[in-house]
């Protein structure tokens, strides 16, 4: 009878999600290429979010950035002796190490105990040249020493700044080991990288795709169905050790619906087809629109995120020199000329706060008291005049027969950025700066021939975003060594080409400063220098928009956790008895 009713409900179009069957339906605008690839050979956000349901880690970070133990029995620290820093005679840290003990009840979803061998297997592959891992830091300097089946020490030499806040991953060696050995034998003497890559694809796709769901996982949920292009379903993993007490009261099934068109995603929310939306889904505008139409059916959240919007100022090449872009006063003047407070109020209802540093405001390293460059056109005009720029007959600033005319580029089709551009263009015009908008597809902007080749004068101002992780902040974006040049194969992220000797020196010191209080001091000075020179014009940190229906608890995230799946074991419905531990901030 119950089944008949359920099927009837389907045919009538009523969703069966929510408390009725203690399941959760989440909408997202992206479909992951694969899931639970332990080596994360793709870096899509939606993959990381979905993996969060199936992954367990030695330690994790909660919404406040505080570490908690998951597979490990406790959080390593200097106080409990699990985290060690080794210094040489000069007092420099030469290596650091973390010891983890795996909890006795930690098991893979097939019931096999999680052992040190699983971490060793993962580490061996992450450093294998045949595995196309995007980057290997810090694992390329890490070694595992085994104490027993359940206890091991990972040593970083040279030392890793954040060793106590991250942990090595793991892969089911009992499931993948034999296939890896076959791959190893087949490709050991293979010279052609494309052939190796094909073999790698065969190996990894046997465990991670819609056709070959992961065989075993370690996290709270295991995948049970993936209809490519439509949906992915995960059900509670009975062998996961960290389920809350009375786990029946928490969500038993999680289904991701892939809805690539965000307007269609919006209609799905309005029509009540979704219980929640992924962190990867709605645009800011859609969030604002949805917030106006809630009517108690769902609630819209705007979560301060880790993505920093800014405008790089090109200081390289002859054109930049002719326009004084390599002089900090010009960049300060450009920043004083724009009213960022009015802009965030007009476009984002003030929900995205103006930023004055590349460091995430929730990071312990963030310096609050830097110059805020509040809108001050008079000060801007003074600075332009000090540089010799005077208004011409058409109102445009000029100097030595040259007009202050700048090419302003961003990713074409990004409507938010295009709107910001128009506002800024109008504001700069008020002080006599002519700005010509020249946008390109993101493949061009982020391609090999644009941002990194600033010395060729392809752009003057470029608006885009970086992810500013509040935990793993090293200050790498603006280091002098990071200026892309022909000599370094145009790698590095310092696209403005800003090179400050003191900043570079402090950055080097900060990279090996293991004392947080001292690192904060170094970052204070680095941010003060950066803020006075403004190699990039800081705009704002983006917020992540999502919705969820009332009564869904522990579906939260922050710039520390990034995705609501970080706490997947505890997601549930209040009406089914789930206890709320985390509220969305």
């Amino acid at each position, binding site marked *: 009878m119950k*089944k008949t009713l359920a*099927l009837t409900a389907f*045919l009538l*179009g009523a969703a*069966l*999600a929510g408390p009725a*069957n203690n399941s959760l*339906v989440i909408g997202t605008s992206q479909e992951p*290429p*694969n899931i639970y690839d332990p080596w994360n050979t793709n*870096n899509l956000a939606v993959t990381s979010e979905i993996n969060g349901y199936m992954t367990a880690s030695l330690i994790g970070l909660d919404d406040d950035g505080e570490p908690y133990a998951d597979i490990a029995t406790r959080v390593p620290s200097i106080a409990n002796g699990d985290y060690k820093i080794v210094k040489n005679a000069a007092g420099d840290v030469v290596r650091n190490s973390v010891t983890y003990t795996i909890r006795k009840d930690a098991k893979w979803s097939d019931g096999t105990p999680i052992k040190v061998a699983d971490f060793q297997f993962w580490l061996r592959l992450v450093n294998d*040249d*045949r595995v*196309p891992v*995007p*980057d*290997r*830091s810090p694992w390329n300097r890490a070694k595992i020493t085994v104490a027993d089946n359940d206890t091991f020490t990972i040593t970083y030499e040279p030392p890793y700044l954040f060793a106590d806040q991250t942990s090595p991953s793991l892969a089911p060696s009992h499931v993948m080991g034999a296939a890896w050995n076959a791959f190893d034998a087949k490709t050991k003497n293979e010279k052609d*990288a*494309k052939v*190796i890559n*094909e073999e*790698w*694809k065969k190996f990894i*796709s046997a465990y991670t*795709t*819609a*056709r070959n769901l992961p065989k075993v996982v370690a996290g709270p949920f295991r995948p049970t*169905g993936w*209809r490519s*292009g*439509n*949906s992915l379903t995960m059900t509670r993993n009975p062998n996961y050790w960290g389920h809350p007490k009375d786990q029946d009261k928490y969500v038993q099934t999680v*289904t991701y*619906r*892939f*809805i*690539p*068109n965000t*307007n*269609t995603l919006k*209609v*799905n929310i*309005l*029509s*009540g*087809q979704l219980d929640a939306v992924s962190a990867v889904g709605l645009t800011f505008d859609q969030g604002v629109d949805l917030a106006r139409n809630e009517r108690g059916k769902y609630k819209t959240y705007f979560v301060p995120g880790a993505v920093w919007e800014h405008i790089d100022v090109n200081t390289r090449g002859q054109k930049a020199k002719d326009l004084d872009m390599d002089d900090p006063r010009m960049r300060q003047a450009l920043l004083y000329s724009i009213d960022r407070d009015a802009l965030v109020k007009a476009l984002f209802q003030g929900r995205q706060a103006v930023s004055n540093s590349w460091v995430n405001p929730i990071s312990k390293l963030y310096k609050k008291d830097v110059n805020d460059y509040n809108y001050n056109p008079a000060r801007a005009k003074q600075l332009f005049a000090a540089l010799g720029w005077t208004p011409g007959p058409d109102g445009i600033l000029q100097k030595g027969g040259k007009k202050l005319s700048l090419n302003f580029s961003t990713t074409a089709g990004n409507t938010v950025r295009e709107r910001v551009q128009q506002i800024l263009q109008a504001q700069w015009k008020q002080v006599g700066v002519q700005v010509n908008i020249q946008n390109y597809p993101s*493949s061009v902007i*982020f*391609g*090999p021939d644009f941002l990194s080749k600033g010395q060729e004068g392809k752009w003057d101002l470029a608006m885009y975003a*970086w*992810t500013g992780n509040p935990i793993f902040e090293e200050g*790498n*974006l603006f280091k002098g060594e990071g200026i892309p040049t022909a000599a*370094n*194969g145009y*790698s*590095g*992220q310092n696209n403005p080409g800003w090179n400050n000797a003191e900043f570079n020196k402090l950055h080097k010191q900060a990279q090996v400063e293991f004392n947080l209080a001292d690192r904060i001091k170094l970052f204070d000075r680095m941010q003060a220098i950066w803020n006075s020179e403004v190699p990039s014009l800081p705009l704002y940190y983006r917020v992540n928009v999502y919705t969820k229906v009332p009564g869904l608890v522990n579906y939260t995230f922050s710039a520390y956790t990034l995705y609501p799946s970080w706490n997947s074991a505890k997601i549930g419905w209040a009406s089914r008895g789930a206890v709320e531990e985390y509220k969305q901030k």
Partner: protein
Amino acid sequence: MGTYALRRVIQMIPLLFVISLLIFMLTALQPGDPVDQLVFGNSNITSEDIARLKAAYGLDQAWYTRYFFWLKQALTGNFGYSQDFGIPAWDFVFQQRLPNTLLLTVPALVISTLIAVPLGIFSAVRQYSALDYVLTFFAFVAVSAPVFWVGALALYFFAVFLPQATGGMVSLPPGGLGSPELPADANWWVVVLDKLKYLLLPLMILMLREIAVTLRFMRANMLETLTQDYVRTARAKGLADRRVLYKHALRNAVTPIVTLLGLSIPGLFGGAVITETVFSWPGMGKAILDALVSKDFNVVMVCLMMLALLTVVFQLLTDLAYGLVDPRIRYS
């Protein structure tokens, strides 16, 4: 006709090679590659990492070297893996995307043709009647209205407004391929009905435009045919209107429809990009677009080569079909 067909088939082979070379070249010469997309946003990545990844994906080689590698493999039936989906590109296209597209586009073409051809004839025969005005107006609106707009309106109407207005009694799902919550052991008829429920809206939107285009085409052909001398002669001979219309005029008026349909068939396999996008229908159109954007080269090649092959094959079949419907055309 056999010799003619054979000659055309042989001509297709070098043509398809040239097409594959052009597609590969144009795709490879786009700015950026999959590694650029991995790199951006990852401040930990080093120049060594970039070089390692480009070498692994073969992106450090010239495009023509990569083309010959692809061609060598393709000739043995290996079309490589999809970069984005981690499965063979061939399987991705033919097992995961093409069936969805055909499920949407074949009924759309068949039903709309069956509806539009009689309506077009009727509209032409009853030119300037009230119904002719209604049909012409409908065709004009349906052709002019952008699919993404009509689709969005339909979504909102059937998935949000109607359920609210009827207390949930009448509703259609707002996009997707089927109910993810459908039990695995559901009866076949439940699965079919569920699929139909999801298919209905995109099918309606796709048919709307197809009907309008074919109706206008049929009406114009029929009107032109009805003014021909042989139709006047037939009428002058005192033949009944019905006989003149269906025996003499219709056969000639339908001939261009064969061309229209013949050339529409590769389009059926190519998918309806906008309809698929608006309704989150995972078909070929969306797959081609996504593969081009994310530089999933192997998927791009499989999709576009399939479309190229279908285009030349159906061009040939259309030409041969002329001989069948029009006795004046002979290939000997």
